[in-house]
């Protein structure tokens, strides 16, 4: 666990920005946290190709910090949503998803009030073209929700990766889906993927090493 006021990443192999309400998020989710002293080091680490994983509030912070494109705005329902969701793995060329197969459906819950991914048409087209949409909200059976996602995200986007595939931002909480006792263990796959990559057994995706 790294302290927000520190700047030293203490040799971390992968930085995870977890969920929560950093500094209360009274203004706009992640808007204050991006200025935390630690974030300077995180940005430098990401820009150097280090693995950075933003989950929920972490994703919001990464967008605010411009380490990922787009923004996360209030859910179209204008209400907080804590519900199970199903994600289709759309891209497997990042270290986070390398162990999954394209089209896999993962049951992972969301818990947020500001999770609607928005971006301009150009950015959306780029994300699609470059296969940078990591996860999309789908129905339980894997079929498309066609705009009916739990937060109204454009293109039903639940998670995206950076151009170099070393930064992942996602609104759903994989850490809440790591044991059957809590309803799903699908999220564990993502942690296993990262662990495998870091232990040297995984193949670093081409984009990340180039």
């Amino acid at each position, binding site marked *: 666990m790294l302290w927000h006021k520190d700047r030293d990443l203490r040799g971390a192999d992968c930085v995870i920005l977890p*969920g*929560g*309400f950093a*500094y*209360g*998020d*009274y203004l706009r989710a992640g808007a204050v946290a991006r200025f935390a002293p630690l974030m300077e080091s995180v940005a430098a680490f990401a820009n150097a190709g280090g693995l950075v994983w933003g989950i929920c509030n972490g994703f919001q912070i990464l967008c605010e910090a411009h380490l990922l494109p787009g923004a996360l705005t209030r859910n179209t329902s204008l*209400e*907080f*949503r*804590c*519900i199970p969701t199903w994600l289709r793995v759309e891209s497997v060329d990042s270290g986070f998803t390398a162990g999954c197969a394209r089209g896999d459906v993962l049951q992972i*819950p969301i*818990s947020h*009030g500001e999770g609607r991914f928005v971006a301009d048409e150009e950015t959306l087209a780029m994300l699609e073209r470059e296969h940078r949409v990591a996860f999309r909200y789908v129905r339980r059976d894997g079929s498309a929700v066609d705009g009916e996602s739990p937060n109204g995200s454009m293109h039903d986007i639940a998670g995206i990766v950076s151009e170099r595939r070393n930064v992942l931002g996602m609104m759903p*909480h994989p*850490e*809440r889906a*790591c044991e059957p*006792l*809590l*309803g799903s263990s699908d999220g564990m796959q993502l942690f296993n993927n990262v662990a495998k990559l870091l232990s040297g057994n995984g193949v670093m995706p081409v984009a990340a090493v180039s």
Partner: protein
Amino acid sequence: MTSVQFAAVSDADLAEVALTRTEYLHLVEGLGREPNRLELGIVGALWSEHCSYKTSKPLLRTLPTKGPHVLQGPGENAGAVDIGNGLACVFKIESHNHPSAIEPYQGAATGVGGILRDIFTMGARPVALLDSLRFGPLDEPHQRHLFDGVVAGIGGYGNCIGIPTVGGELYFDESYRTNCLVNAMCVGIVEQGKLTLATASGPGNLVLLVGADTGRDGIHGASFASVVLDADSAARRPAVQVGNPFLEKCLMEACLELAGDPRVIAMQDLGAAGLCGSTAELAHRGGCGIEVDVARASRRETGMTPYEVMLSESQERMLIVAKPGDVRSLQEVFERWDLHSDVVAVILPEQRFIVRDGCDPVCDLPLDLLVDGAPPRGAPGPRPEGPPTVTAAGIPPPPWTPDEAILQLIGSPNLGSRESVYRRYDHQVGDATVILPGGDAALVRVGGTSLGLALATDGNSRYTALDARQGAMIAVCEAARNVVATGAKPVAVTNCLNFANPEHADVWWDLHDAIEGIGEACRALEIPVVSGNVSLYNDTGGTGIDPTVVIGMVGVIDDVAQRCTAGFRDEGDLIALVGPVEAELDGSEYQRLAHGVNAGAPPRLDIDLERRVQSFIVEAVSAGLLHSAHDCAEGGIAIAIAESCLLGDIGAWVGIDELGQGEGLIIGEAGILFGESQSRFVISFAREALVRLHELAGRHSVPFRGLGSVGGERVCVTGCIDVSLVDVRRAHEGALIERE
């Protein structure tokens, strides 16, 4: 004393601090002089019903508060019980009704903030929140406004601070039209050795005020909560505080870092009556005195008087008692969390409550008179003769077929799905919620152990309105049943007693009877009461709420892997009813919906049978015999079966002939289907378990009747009900959705 001295006190002055003339004279007598204005305000706050419990204290003394697991009973910020593994579970429920009626979002949010502080003040890390809510009929725009605001406020605070809201209850009734109820419960865990008390000691020790600066918000909150609401109540909005959950998060982490630290002699949060209430209670518990210097408290605003500083209910503040030599090092801990702290008081050897404003002494009161001196209020009059009994007899039932009746009931605001509420609460943060909201009780695992805490709140005010004593007993039993349905054993109770104006004899006697009922049920079930709260004066313009007893129950299951849930599970499983079959419709949800009245007597309760039924369920779950167990509550057997179908997403076929046989009852009769007889569970299990369950039921002498089996996509009761699960779900899920 200085310039604040004044001669005669007017009725208006007394009304402002909510003291009666008799109480004032009692104060003057005890003091041997007239109080100054500040003293009068301080006494008014501490002698308010909210702080002094002057009406309820003599009654509450009768409750059973001891037991082999009790580590801390009533009197501290919260109760604590031993749950094994060297851990204590700390919990309490508290009302925030009056503020929520005026400003629903902040009222509810600060209610959550306040109950959280009560728990982490004891050194315990909060692990779960529950909320018991009551409003008037939801089709009225104002009620929708209150409901939406309260739900948003609970979510806004709980989600932000990161404590899961795992359960609670929600009812709508005419009686809450002008007085909504918002009761918040918090549950925390602490190593027993780190349990921290709010008992000051050591004259010369210093008192740190940590957290938010003091502002003008919430002045007179305690007095406000102790009078009836009126047309001017909206003008009292300044008496409602504003919450800052992020500040509380920092305060919580800092306080938990210090739990068990020998430098911390005592910890006390600031709640009702602000600095005044907290300093007085802290010193009083320790049998010492305290001298507060208001000039040392950091302010949010300029020009605040000592009176305002002492009575401000600004949120997110905490007091820490420490030796002078430890103060600086403690302040450093708080500074790491960006928390400001001031030394505002010193502990005195003699039991006095002294307030200074810099060099000026502005208040000097005997502490005992201040904290314990409010004259207790007894019965305002003899027990009134019961009002003419309302009866449903003359009112013909609506021409509902049983199919229509079940859909009407399951789609009604009181029985409909709560999903649209709890999806707005983060109920999973912390990765410990094993049974999510929507079933009988939530189950939260205890980190680092196999233990689970089953948590529920319950209280059916229709029953207490008809018979406070019986209704209160049922509330205890039902809360226990919710916990038992998971396989957990109930260990202790917290309670929130919401009543109207106790100066009316009928209300006072209802309070008296309800406390008696809680006591009797808790003694019979051997579940001690370890904490609680009383909220009186839930009355607006002479219209009071029905007596409402909310029981918060904590149960422990040794191994969460053994837990049982309420939803039917496997095709072909057998369904059985455990408990009695009677055809009682009085006080039921069906009676209210179908006949539009709440009449007669609440369901009968055989407390000894109740105990046996609960033991049977706990034993059956721990033996691994059950696939589901669901408490049979509002809406009776038919609704319990439908709910188990919805939760398991599978149908059921029930032959209700079994129920009527030999009882002289008519099959398909509303009383059998929807009557709310007590001490019952609907269970399901694999066929192979039947013999052992029969045998177990015999050993516990509990009625056990096979009902049918699990399967298909319809809810069928032979000869009367046959509805598709899709239709049942549609009705259930639409119950709280706003109709355009």
